[in-house]
């Protein structure tokens, strides 16, 4: 795909690999609403804390074994902390793509060009909802095991997924942001 229509990649993030965490993560159980941890604002994390580095590896490992999962936040594995793993590689709605990465203490800096789309969540497995989110997004955050604050600009599906995960870190679900009284749907599963 041409790079003309995508955001400028943050090369540090794009080049990052879970191998840099130096340990293989464990697959953790994903909690479901109405578990209270999903409604709890996550604590700021120390990205150098070995416990948090291990959690980063666990998030990646758990995301990897979950079919269709493009992101997983610490509250979803029962930890009220501001950390999430993301990987929108290969999704048809992805344009700009930084591959797999984990971020700590991510903050939205700029969010523009709102568009409505239907999204789901592993922690709300039986419902989906229409949510309006920015399709151009700039955030800051820190890679686990490092101290440097990175700035990431992206668009389309990666932007949506990032906002969904940052919401988790603040104790919010997509259910808090649905676009109308009829914007929540039972998930359609064709067997």
């Amino acid at each position, binding site marked *: 795909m041409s790079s003309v229509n995508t955001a400028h990649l943050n090369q540090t993030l794009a080049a990052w690999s879970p191998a840099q965490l130096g340990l293989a993560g464990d697959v953790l159980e994903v909690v*479901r*609403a*109405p578990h209270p941890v999903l*409604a709890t604002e996550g604590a700021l994390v120390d990205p150098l804390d070995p416990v948090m580095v291990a959690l980063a590896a666990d998030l990646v490992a758990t995301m990897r074994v979950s079919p269709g999962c493009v992101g997983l936040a610490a509250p979803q594995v029962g930890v009220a902390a501001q950390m999430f793993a993301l990987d929108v590689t290969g999704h048809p709605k992805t344009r700009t793509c930084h591959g797999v990465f984990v971020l700590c203490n991510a903050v939205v800096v700029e969010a523009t060009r709102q568009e409505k789309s239907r999204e789901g969540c592993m922690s*709300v497995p*039986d*419902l989906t909802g229409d949510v*309006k989110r920015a399709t151009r997004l700039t955030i800051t955050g820190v890679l686990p095991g490092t101290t440097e604050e990175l700035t990431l600009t992206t668009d389309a599906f990666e932007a949506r997924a990032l906002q969904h995960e940052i919401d988790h870190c603040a104790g*919010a*679900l997509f*259910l*808090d*942001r*649905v*676009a*109308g*009284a*009829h*914007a*929540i749907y*039972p998930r359609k599963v064709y067997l």
Partner: protein
Amino acid sequence: MSQLAVTVIGPDRPGIIADVTEALAQAGVNLEDSTMTLLRGHFAMMIVCSGPFAEVREALEPLRGELVITVREMGPEHAHAPIGPPYLLSVHGADRPGIVSAVTRMIASVGGTITDQTTRLSGALYVLTAEVELPPGAELGMLQRALEITAEELGVGVTLRPAESDDL
């Protein structure tokens, strides 16, 4: 010709809407506002339409049985004039009796009105979303706090935010 309210509820199957609206069309009915959804798998439809009462009842008679159908004559139509700016109310948490009544009572107590509402039970999770109009004089801050206190007592989370609408 009067305005009629038709409700249809029953076990879902393909073709209910086609059957009902075909019968109404044959009775010379003009469909106006309607809504249809599945409520825990049950077909549920409400229609406001204009047509001849007796003919409509008769036209729908063959469909009764598996479907519970009511036809009522309505009073004069009231155009809904908004009482104030629109908000979106979202409530979710562990299911228990009394969530909807407690939350909607708080809205009513400040003179707010609900113009659209859906609730879903998904496993242990109960979700309510509603569109709410609040009168201009309503103390939004007070209402937010009252909703939060009510929500805490119920063990659920609540958000009330302005409904965005973009004119294009």
